[in-house]
């Protein structure tokens, strides 16, 4: 888009790639502190029960056991693990350990011992006496009249979040046809490869330092200081290298238990979760039931649409309202529908806590939206592309100040070309037109049971939380003595190149090399305040902040240079190589300027700013899939896949591609194979990675991708997000393709081989 850029738009490896390929990168679980103890959680085996007693006598006898933390000897102040800022008003239903356990996997107590083997031995010797209570394992159970109320503070059916535009009753009255469909999406796991892990270090000064696999250091500090009633000057939270997160590491999970044990022992304590524990004791993606009612004219214009969504939020309130709240905006973004209403209601159940996962409500709602649209096209006998065209929002339809520059249409058109949609569609039409005799002649032994189909979907997601609540970051940029820089940014890079992007943006403004900028990540002692890394705010908000703080630094540099060179400010420019040059070619280096400022003025060169999100903007993506389904085995082979995303301006091309490719892996699993299934006792049946089926390398298709760069102000250089949007269109695209192949209308995901085989039978 902007041809004057030297770094922005290029491909850069992630800033710590070398440390990662040599094994040197230090993740939280790799840290070893002096005298560190190992902590092991004891998790509930009951879905809903009172903890009557916890007998730790035998466990305490195991040599090397130092402390056991229980609900009876730790603070029981209630909190909400998804708290975003200190005055965030969301229901508080969680505690460090639970006196009443509400799901299989709830925290009962924890052991700290000299090593892991000892902690594991001791944990097995702890005897917990439960008084079982009735349990509610589905949304329907929880909504039944007379169902046990899971929390004192709130009903099982939490408050609904509503959003409305126009008049839906009027709209439906005008419609030629009305379609009502119900869709279900499963509970899945974010499945970051790094299991949750926290190290708490309570020293003898009474200061608590927590190193944690977190996306949200400042929120964790808020929660810990509140629960343990400590001033924040005594609490420090640090984010080491993070092995993936996808939203699961936004809430405080292990920090409280680790802190409790550290306070009991005055030694650092590391707690991590095994994968089996992590699947249930961290966070899941909300399962959902989406009732979608759409009124259309016969020519395909959508005149009214209502969403009635129930989400399964699990055993504690957590992110319940955040997710349905986010959904309440997203469903309005893609189409010009004049009359719409959204109602989203979270429901508490005795299942693992649902939290944030990439897409945060959009994958659920957009699956329903795009699935139904595909079916409506069939029912009206209109080409799906035409139906999309009739309704997709275009930039000229919206107030650019309010809404920005939405390009889903461009994504669809470009994607159709990349995917060769017309050619594939023609092939399908020709197949349909062939008579049975000809078709039989084409059949071979191998393709007799195969059916081909194509489908696509358009998805969207946001760029931060503008409009929902405060959305800002404070940044500090310091010049080192040699003219290089340190940026203190409070960011939580999780492999998504946040740090690298920040380096690129600052280096772009200051015309330096990437290596001239070092970025310090989230550490509540050393970096200014950041809301947290989620909601895809990294480019749009934090990136915007980087431009602002680099701009301030540039001003200081030029002011000082003008003084040094006795030149007019307007005659000076930054030049590559950390230099300032005047119109006559005289050069001073940043180091010269630093020395001047230190020696003459005894003043350091640093720039500090706070940047608040300036607007709510939407990112879009269109994904296309061609599948071949074996109707006897139910296996889906993905023959071709294309994805085009509206990103405003590419910042780091390599990372953008990588994020999109990763989002596709997650979405394919969401559509075809991933699902957490529970037995009648509320225990997770598929509790390991053999049985929880993520897409492997051999299952992934070759992927064609492209980006639409038409700019999105006020994103940095016009850039906006892809992080979450990457996964939103995938499941509906692939299921639309499978539906096309089988001429069958799917209403639930995942569409596993068993489902497909059943259709055939």
């Amino acid at each position: 888009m902007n041809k004057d850029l030297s770094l922005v738009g290029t491909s850069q490896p992630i800033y710590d790639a070398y440390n990662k390929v040599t094994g040197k990168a230090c993740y939280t679980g790799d840290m070893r502190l002096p005298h560190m103890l190992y902590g092991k959680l004891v998790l509930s085996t009951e879905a809903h029960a009172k903890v009557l007693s916890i007998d730790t006598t035998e466990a305490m006898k195991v040599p090397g056991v130092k402390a056991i933390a229980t609900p009876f000897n730790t603070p029981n102040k209630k909190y909400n693990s998804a708290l975003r800022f200190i005055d965030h008003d969301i229901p508080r239903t969680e505690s460090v350990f639970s006196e009443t356990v509400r799901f299989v996997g709830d925290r009962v107590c924890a052991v700290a011992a000299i090593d892991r083997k000892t902690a594991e031995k001791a944990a097995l010797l702890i005897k917990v006496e439960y008084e079982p209570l009735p349990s509610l394992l589905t949304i329907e159970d929880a909504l039944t009249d007379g169902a046990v109320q899971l929390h004192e503070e709130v009903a099982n059916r939490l408050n609904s979040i509503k959003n409305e535009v126009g008049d839906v009753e009027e709209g439906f009255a005008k419609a030629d046809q009305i379609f009502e469909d119900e869709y279900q999406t499963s509970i899945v796991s974010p499945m970051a490869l790094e299991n949750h892990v926290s190290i708490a270090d309570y020293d003898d000064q009474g200061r608590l330092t927590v190193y944690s696999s977190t996306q949200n250091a400042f929120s964790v500090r808020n929660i810990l200081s509140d629960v343990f009633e400590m001033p924040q000057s005594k609490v420090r939270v640090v984010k080491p290298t993070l092995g993936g997160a996808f939203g699961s590491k936004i809430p405080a999970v292990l920090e409280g238990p680790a802190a409790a044990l550290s306070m009991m022992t005055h030694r650092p304590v590391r707690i991590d979760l095994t994968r089996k524990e992590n699947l249930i004791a961290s966070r899941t993606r909300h399962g959902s039931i989406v009732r979608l009612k759409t009124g259309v004219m016969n020519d395909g214009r959508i005149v009214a649409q209502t969403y009635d969504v129930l989400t399964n939020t699990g055993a504690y309130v957590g992110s319940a309202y955040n997710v349905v709240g986010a959904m309440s905006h997203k469903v309005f973004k893609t189409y010009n529908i004049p009359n719409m209403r959204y109602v989203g209601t979270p429901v508490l159940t005795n299942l693992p806590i649902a939290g944030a996962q990439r897409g945060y409500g959009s994958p659920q709602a957009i699956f329903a939206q795009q699935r139904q649209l595909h079916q409506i096209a069939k029912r009206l006998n209109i080409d799906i592309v035409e139906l999309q065209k009739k309704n997709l929002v275009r930039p000229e339809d919206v107030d650019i100040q309010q809404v920005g520059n939405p390009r889903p249409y461009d994504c669809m058109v470009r994607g159709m070309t990349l995917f060769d949609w017309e050619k594939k569609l023609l092939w399908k039409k020709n197949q349909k037109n062939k008579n049975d005799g000809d078709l039989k002649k084409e059949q071979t032994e191998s393709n007799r049971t195969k059916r081909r189909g194509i489908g696509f979907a358009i998805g969207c997601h946001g760029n931060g939380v503008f409009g929902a609540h405060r959305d800002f970051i404070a940044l500090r940029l310091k010049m080192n003595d040699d003219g290089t820089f340190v940026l203190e940014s409070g960011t939580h890079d999780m492999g998504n190149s946040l740090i690298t992007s920040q380096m690129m943006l600052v280096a772009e403004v200051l015309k330096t090399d990437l290596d001239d900028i070092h970025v310090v990540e989230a550490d509540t002692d050393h970096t200014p305040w950041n809301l947290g890394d989620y909601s895809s705010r990294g480019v749009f908000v934090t990136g915007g902040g980087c431009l602002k703080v680099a701009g301030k630094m540039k001003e200081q540099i030029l002011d000082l240079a003008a003084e040094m060179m006795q030149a007019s400010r307007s005659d000076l420019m930054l030049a590559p190589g950390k230099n300032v040059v005047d119109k006559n070619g005289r050069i001073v280096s940043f180091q010269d300027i630093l020395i001047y400022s230190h020696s003459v003025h005894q003043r350091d060169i640093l720039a500090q700013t706070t940047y608040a999100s300036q607007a709510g903007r939407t990112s879009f993506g269109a994904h296309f899939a061609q599948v071949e389904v074996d109707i006897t085995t139910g296996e889906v082979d993905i023959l071709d896949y294309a994805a085009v995303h509206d990103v405003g301006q590419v910042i780091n091309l390599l990372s953008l591609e990588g994020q999109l490719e990763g989002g596709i892996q997650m979405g394919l699993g969401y559509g075809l194979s991933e699902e957490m299934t529970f037995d009648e006792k509320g225990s997770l049946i598929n509790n390991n990675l053999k049985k929880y089926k993520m897409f492997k390398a051999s299952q992934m298709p070759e992927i064609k991708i492209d980006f639409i760069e038409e700019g999105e102000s006020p994103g940095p250089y016009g850039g906006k997000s892809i992080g979450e949007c990457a996964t939103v269109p995938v499941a509906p695209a692939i299921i639309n393709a499978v539906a096309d192949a089988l001429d069958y209308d799917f209403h639930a995901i995942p569409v596993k081989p068993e489902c497909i085989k059943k259709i055939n039978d």
Partner: protein
Amino acid sequence: MKTSNFTPIGSLRPFGGVIPNERIIMETVSLNINGEQHAVLVEKNYTLLYVLREMLNITGPKEGCSTGDCGTCKVLIDGQAKNACTTLAIRCEDKEIVTIEGIAINGDLHPLQTSFVKKGAVQCGFCTPGMIISAKALLDENEKPSREEVRQALDNNLCRCTGYVKIVDAIEDAAAKMRGENHE
């Protein structure tokens, strides 16, 4: 509180459960890791991963699942890529074990390592050590694998960040370099 390892309180069966009052039996095993000998005192059921990470502080291999399904713990044992989490330490005497830390030779990165960096195959990096180990085992066997063969070789390595695309690109790139074909 005493911290002796030999008090007969109980001992853990490999897959859970405690046998009370059974003496804990530990034996010494000598492990050759990245060219260095380590003598370690282990119980029969200690996995190689536990010994590497928790006893020797060799933290390059990661613990993603403990059941041999994710590949983040992969190490080379006599040139074969194996999951350290399902390998018993006592069975590793006399074997040549190479972890990710031993892939670079005298500070020179292996072509796989530079390719992974340059091709964007590294995002969060948690799967990276295991991926490189599996890739090395593949390329040591097959110097010109097809993309399909590369994908198959990664069948026991999960990744949640990259969709595997650039990992396959990187392995192809490294293979070409190792064949002398890429001059960058």
